[in-house]
C-alpha cells in the first residue's frame, strides 16, 4: 500500500496515541532534570494536531507534516513546541508536494528535520537533547535507504538508532536546554526529548510496518 497523505495522517494519529500512553513517563523524565512538563506539552500539542486532522486531511504527505508543524508551533510552547515544530516543518519542505513517501524521501525528510532542530536549538550530539536521538536516526535512515529499499525498514532502522541514541544520553552532562542548569546533576538521567523522539520514530516505524 503506498504511503500517501491518508497513511501519514493515520501514522500521526497513532503517534499521538503513543504520546498519550507515555505522557506520565515523559513527565517523570522531565521532572528529574527539567520542569516536569514535556509529557504534558506533547500530549496537549498532539491533541491539537489530531483536532486539526479531524478538520482537514491535506492532500499530500508534506502538507500533512506542515499542518503538524504549524499546530505544534502555535499550540505547544516550551522548547519542544518550536523544536518539533521546526523538525516537522523542515521535513514537510523536504517532501515537497510528492503524493507518496519513498524510502529516500523519508530519509531526506528526517535529515532535514534534524537540521531544523540543530538550526534552532544549536545543540550538538552529546549535549543530551533530542538531537542525540534524531541524528543517529537520520544516519541510519540514510544508510538503510541506500541499501535496502523498504520504507518500513528505513523507519525501523531510524527507530532502533533513536532508541539507542536516547539511551546514550543517560551518562551525559546536559549542555543545552533546561537540564543544563543542573550541570553534573543531570548525569544518570534519560533526556525526555530524546525519549519522545525515539517514541515518535518507533510509532512511525510501526505504522509503516502495519500499512
Amino acid at each position, binding site marked *: 500500500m503506498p504511503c500517501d497523505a491518508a497513511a501519514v495522517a493515520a501514522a500521526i494519529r497513532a503517534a499521538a496515541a503513543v504520546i498519550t500512553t507515555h505522557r506520565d513517563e515523559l513527565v517523570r523524565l522531565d521532572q528529574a532534570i*527539567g520542569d516536569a512538563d514535556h509529557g*504534558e506539552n506533547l500530549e496537549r500539542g498532539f491533541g491539537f494536531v489530531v483536532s486539526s486532522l479531524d478538520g482537514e486531511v491535506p492532500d499530500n504527505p508534506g502538507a500533512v507534516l506542515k499542518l503538524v508543524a504549524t499546530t505544534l508551533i502555535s499550540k505547544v*510552547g516550551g522548547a519542544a513546541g518550536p523544536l518539533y515544530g521546526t523538525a516537522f516543518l523542515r521535513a514537510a519542505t523536504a517532501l515537497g508536494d510528492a503524493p507518496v513517501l519513498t524510502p529516500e524521501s523519508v530519509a531526506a525528510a528526517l535529515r532535514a528535520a534534524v537540521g531544523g532542530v540543530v538550526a534552532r536549538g544549536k545543540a550538538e550530539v552529546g549535549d543530551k537533547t533530542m538531537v542525540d536521538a534524531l541524528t543517529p536516526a537520520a544516519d541510519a535512515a540514510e544508510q538503510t535507504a541506500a541499501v535496502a529499499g523498504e520504507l518500513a525498514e528505513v523507519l525501523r532502522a531510524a527507530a532502533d538508532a533513536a532508541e539507542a541514541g536516547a539511551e546514550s544520553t543517560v551518562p551525559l552532562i546536559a549542555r543545552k536546554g533546561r537540564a543544563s542548569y543542573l550541570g553534573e546533576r543531570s548525569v544518570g538521567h534519560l533526556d525526555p526529548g530524546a525519549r519522545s523522539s525515539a517514541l515518535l520514530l518507533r510509532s512511525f516505524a510501526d505504522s509503516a510496518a502495519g500499512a
Partner: protein
Amino acid sequence: MKKIVNDPADVVADALRGLAAAHPGLLRVTEDPAVVARADAPVRGKVAVVSGGGSGHEPLHTGFVGPGMLDAACPGAVFTSPTPDQVQAAVSQVDGGAGILLVVKNYTGDVLNFETAAELLAADGVDVRTVVIDDDVAVQDSLYTAGRRGVGGTVPLEKIVGAAAEAGADLDTCERLAGTVIANTRSMGMALTAPTVPHVGEPSFTLAGDEMEVGIGIHGEPGRRRAALADANGIVTALLDPILSDLPFTEGDRVLLFTNSMGGTPLLELYLAHGIAERRLAERGIAVERRLVGPFITSLEMQGMSLTMLRLDDELLRWWDAPVHTPALRWGL
C-alpha cells in the same frame, strides 16, 4: 494533590477568568490565544512592552500589566513558555505604532517562541525588538550551556522599561535601557520545598527535612546543589555572596534590593531575611536606595526565596520611582 483547582488541564484559563473578574477597567483578558493586556491598549504613539512566560510564577507577568509597566503579558501553560501565536495576538492588541519591545527570560523555550513571533511580526512590518534577561548567577555562563536563566531581575526590568515607555521614550531608548538593567542585575534563589505542578500532581522534587536546594530556578527544576539546611544568616549568605562577587557590586554602589518569596515562604520570614541582607550590604558600604519585598516571581507554592540586586543610577532610579498601576505593583496612581 492539595490544590484549589478544578480540571488541571484548565487551570490557566480558569485563573485568567478570575484575574479578569478581579481587575475590570485595568486589564483586558482574551482567551485562545491567552493574552492579558492593559484595558486602554493600544496607547497611540507609545512603545508597547510585552512579556510572557509559563504560568505558575504569578504575579509575574500578568500581575505587571497596566499603566507604567507591561502593555501585555502572554501566559503559557504552567511552567511552559507561551507560543508565538500568543505573542502575535498580544502585539496586535497593544501595538501603538511606536514599536514593540519583547521582554524575554533566558530559557530555551521562551527564547525560541518569542524569536519565532518576532520573526513573524517583523515580516509583517512591525518594528519589534527582543531583550533577553539572564540574571541568575547560579548558572555559569558558558558557551556550553543554555546560559544563565532569567529570574528575579525580570521584575525591575519590566518596571523600569515600562515606566520609560509610558513616559514616551522611543524604542531605541527602551531597548538601551533594558540593556542597562540587564547588565546591572544579578539574582540567586533557593528552595526549602518543591512546588507541585497541577498536571503532575506531586512535588517536582523531594528534599529531606534537613536539606535545601541552592541555586534554584522558578520551574521546580532542582537547583545547582543540594545543601544542608542553614539558618537565615546562612541562607542569605549563600545567595548574597555569589551575587556580590559576580557583577561585582562594590563599596559605594547604589542598589535596589529585591527580596522575593518563591511563593510559600511567609512574609514574616521574608522580612527577616531582608533585614539580614540589608545589614550585610551596609557592612560593605553598598547603599540600598530602593527595596522590594514580597512574592513577585514565584514558583507556585514553593517555599524559598531569591535575592536580586540592581545597581542603580539616576536614570534607573527615576524610572523605578515613576508611577505604576498594575495588580501587583502600584504607586503614584
